[in-house]
């Protein structure tokens, strides 16, 4: 398979969208997760709430993925 440089750039663009959002989500979840585990150590019932708060930034990656797909679609068009 021979790919021209344009295809490569599109692929890099899509991967940046995912990488950036994944790193951002990771950073956000790190601090929330720490706090949530701390709170759970004090009060067991907070597991549900802690879990939800922890996974909230995960949406960022999904947005990254959607953008990546849009980039790939635009390139294909």
């Amino acid at each position, binding site marked *: 398979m021979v790919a021209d440089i344009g295809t490569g750039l599109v692929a890099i663009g899509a991967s940046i969208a995912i990488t950036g959002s994944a790193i951002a989500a990771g950073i956000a979840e790190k601090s929330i997760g720490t706090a949530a585990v701390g709170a759970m150590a004090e009060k067991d019932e907070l*597991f549900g709430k802690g*879990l*939800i708060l922890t996974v909230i930034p995960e*949406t960022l990656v999904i*947005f990254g993925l*959607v953008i990546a*797909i849009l980039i790939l679609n635009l390139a294909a068009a």
Partner: protein
Amino acid sequence: MFYPEAMSKILILGHQQDLKSVIERLHELKIVHIVEHSKNELDIGTPLKEGEAASELLVRIRSLKTLLKITEQPKKLPKDKLIFKKVKSNVDKIHALALKKTAKEKELNDGISLLERQYSTLSELAAFKLGLNLFYGYQNLAVFIGRVEKPEVLKTKLKNITSEFELKIGKEFKKNIFTIALFIELSKKEQAENILQKFKFAPIDISPVKEMKGKPSDLIHEIGRKLKECCTERDNVRNSLTGLSGKAKNFLVKEEARFALIAEKAEAPLKFAVTSETFIVKGWVPKKQIEELRKELNILAKNRIVFEEMPTSDNEARPVRLKNPALVKPFEFFMELYSLPKYYEIDPSAILFITFPLFFGIMLGDIGYGLVSLILFTLFRKLFPGMKKLLNSMLLAALSAIIFGFVFGEFFGAEQIFGYELPVLIHRTHQINEMLIISVAIGIVQINLGLILGFINVLRHHGIKHAIFEKISWMVLEIGVGLLAVSYLKFLSIPIIVPSILILLAIIMLYLGEGVRGILELPTIFTNMLSYARLMALGLASASLAVVVNDMAGKFFNGNVVMIAIGVLILVFGHTINLLLGWLGPFLHSMRLQYVEFFTKFYEGGGYPYKPFGLNEGG
């Protein structure tokens, strides 16, 4: 199904003479959630008479259990009749025996640790071949006993300060570290200390052997023999303690259950209000069981007991018992994990019954993985009875994964079952755009369902005006933005003024309904919808991983037996990992979509559970 069990507030008023029998009956019925009386004009009751002795015995049984290291918790109530004196004397007997034996064990332990210290000191001193009395008690000599590095060099250093010393070198403790005994004239003590420090002098404590007389090499045998004797004796004591614990276990656990029950009943009056002659119990009872309770109390003490249903205000917090058909019951787990609904709130368990397996299925969506999950979850259900509720809901989720496996036409990532091509409704790995649209569409449906539920909740509680401003406003916003998007993409030509007015209207309604906060949260509804794209994303990741595993293993299947074995290993290992990920990811994300995207549209939570008197965790 959509609301928690209806509760009525009741009041029972009776004469003190009936107190005991009323407590007994309420405990048997297990339907009254007692509201604790807090002391006002009326005092709280005192525990029943027999309660004191029972509580005391219960405390002793529990401490005895700790002493004998019995960790088993009581499960069943004993059936046989209670003979208090017999139980008490039995507990006394075991207690005395256990105390005697543990005291003996402690004494032996102390002895053993002293003997061990003596033994190790003596074995170090033995190398010097000197009598014990020579190591201490000098008037003009300082004695250092300990370990140093390079004692030969030390000797030459010491010679520089005085010739009046004797350095005995004992055995080599570790490489280049020796035990030494240094006898040096008292006036040079400090100088010697300084030098010793440079050789990393670590003193040996000889205090454990100060009382002894004779040569260390002779004493050490005696000590060794004693040590052995003590250890055997300690082992014997320990064994007999284990034996005692084994013999007493059933008795203690059984009686703990019995006395915990008696103590619980005896302490019930602490929750009641009393006067000198009467008692009052307030509590909550499921509405449908009110007549049953009234009948029971009438049988118990006709005409002596007042039983009344009390008027309640709408806002009064009531205990919550979820009421759902057996199929939906497992999904109450997710409510308990999050927070029980308030009494007047819609209980969304029945909706989770549909959406949780649906989302899980779309994300896992593989016939093979679904079947394996189904088998494993059935197995886990036998192994961990405590997690039954969760596993029952996971069983349904696994079933849904199988169904979606047929929709996507996937069997362990392959698009065939042993050569038979699977019919495919939609291709997860190729038709990404279609999957994306379907996912977001599901999101739009669920979020609007949430808004409708929210509308009903607010309508019931705050009236129509609030309901429209707080919930319908979001829908107006959705329509406005939707029209804007449609006209922007040129599917329809709508004058721009229509969506603009709708959006403006929505913003005003939101401001009236939820204040500035509502306006700040304007974009969240769209991020929430996009969030459902994870249905597509996780499915894509799971399916792609399975395909990668298959491709990696596939290369090996053309070779000889060893290659094929490696291929099989890769298949098993890869699919196990992917299945574990396929449980964790879809489970968490399916749950998250409910909690974060769906619940925030209508759910408040914070209800407290209905715990009827008599239904204790332990019993």
